[in-house]
């Protein structure tokens, strides 16, 4: 399984993501600079890591979503390559338009950094098949702009098409319909605010994130 991790100025979870991917794939991911034009050949997964790309200037993920490498990411996604965006990566995916909606300032306007209880809403996707439906898991969150917004029609279609991967068990940031992670129509793109790569080792205090990466292997 070949993977790549995008790196932007201000990314700070790129190395954690690389460790998580290497742990399950046994292969070092390609680290791809945002200024490059092409992704490596024969990729199975592209990860867009958390952090504060471009200092969150203008809007979280806005600048990163217009950087050089993004055209290749969109082409890869359209060809069926799996794309995982975590935290700032989720914000970037919505700014690109690969996922619907937007991530707004948390409802209580505070930066939230803690373990969040999530409910697995969709356990048969390529990202979540190692979980069971309605299972409760604990994954860390660390964000200021995690308040998921989409218009009612979009939210309805996400529910109808079973594209909500994870919901907050208790809504921590004001997200519409408790949404913590969403899939694209064909199920090969996942964006989520919680950080599965920060919960893959007992030394992290929990390993509930590991199965997301294991799901990718099956």
């Amino acid at each position: 399984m070949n993977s790549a991790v995008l790196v932007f100025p201000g990314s700070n979870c790129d190395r954690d993501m690389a460790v998580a991917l290497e742990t399950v794939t046994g292969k070092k991911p390609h680290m791809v600079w945002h200024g490059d034009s092409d992704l490596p050949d024969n990729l199975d997964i592209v990860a867009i890591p958390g952090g504060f790309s471009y200092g969150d200037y203008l809007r979280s993920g806005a600048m990163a979503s217009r950087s050089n490498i993004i055209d290749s990411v969109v082409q890869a996604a359209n060809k069926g390559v799996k794309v995982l965006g975590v935290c700032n990566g989720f914000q970037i995916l919505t700014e690109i338009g690969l996922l619907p909606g937007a991530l707004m300032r948390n409802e209580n306007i505070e930066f939230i950094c803690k373990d969040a209880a999530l409910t697995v809403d969709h356990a048969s996707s390529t990202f979540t098949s190692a979980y069971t439906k309605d299972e409760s898991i604990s994954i860390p969150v660390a964000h200021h702009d995690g308040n998921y917004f989409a218009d009612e029609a979009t939210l309805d279609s996400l529910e109808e098409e079973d594209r909500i991967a994870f919901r907050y068990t208790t809504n921590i940031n004001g997200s519409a319909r408790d949404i913590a992670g969403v899939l694209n129509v064909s199920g090969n793109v996942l964006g989520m605010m919680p950080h599965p790569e920060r919960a893959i080792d007992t030394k992290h205090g929990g390993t509930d994130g590991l199965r997301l990466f294991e799901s990718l292997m099956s």
Partner: protein
Amino acid sequence: MKIRIYVTLKNGVLDPQGKAIHHALESLDFNGVNDVRAGKLIELDVDDNMADADIEKMCEKLLANTVIENFEIEKLAAKTTEEA
């Protein structure tokens, strides 16, 4: 030519920052405020002959996220007259 782009949240989109400002105003005993919405002002200095369509494109492609935001373009007087 200077132009100002006002980026504001669409109606119906919750504005947590506006709400916080509203609460802060109330805590300062300004009680007649019914609602607060916060937005952004982006000022650009562009070539005088820049086409309106290009300015709109800049807003749509980068300056505003049209999923949640509206934008308004205001053209200010050309530099020469402004400085006179």
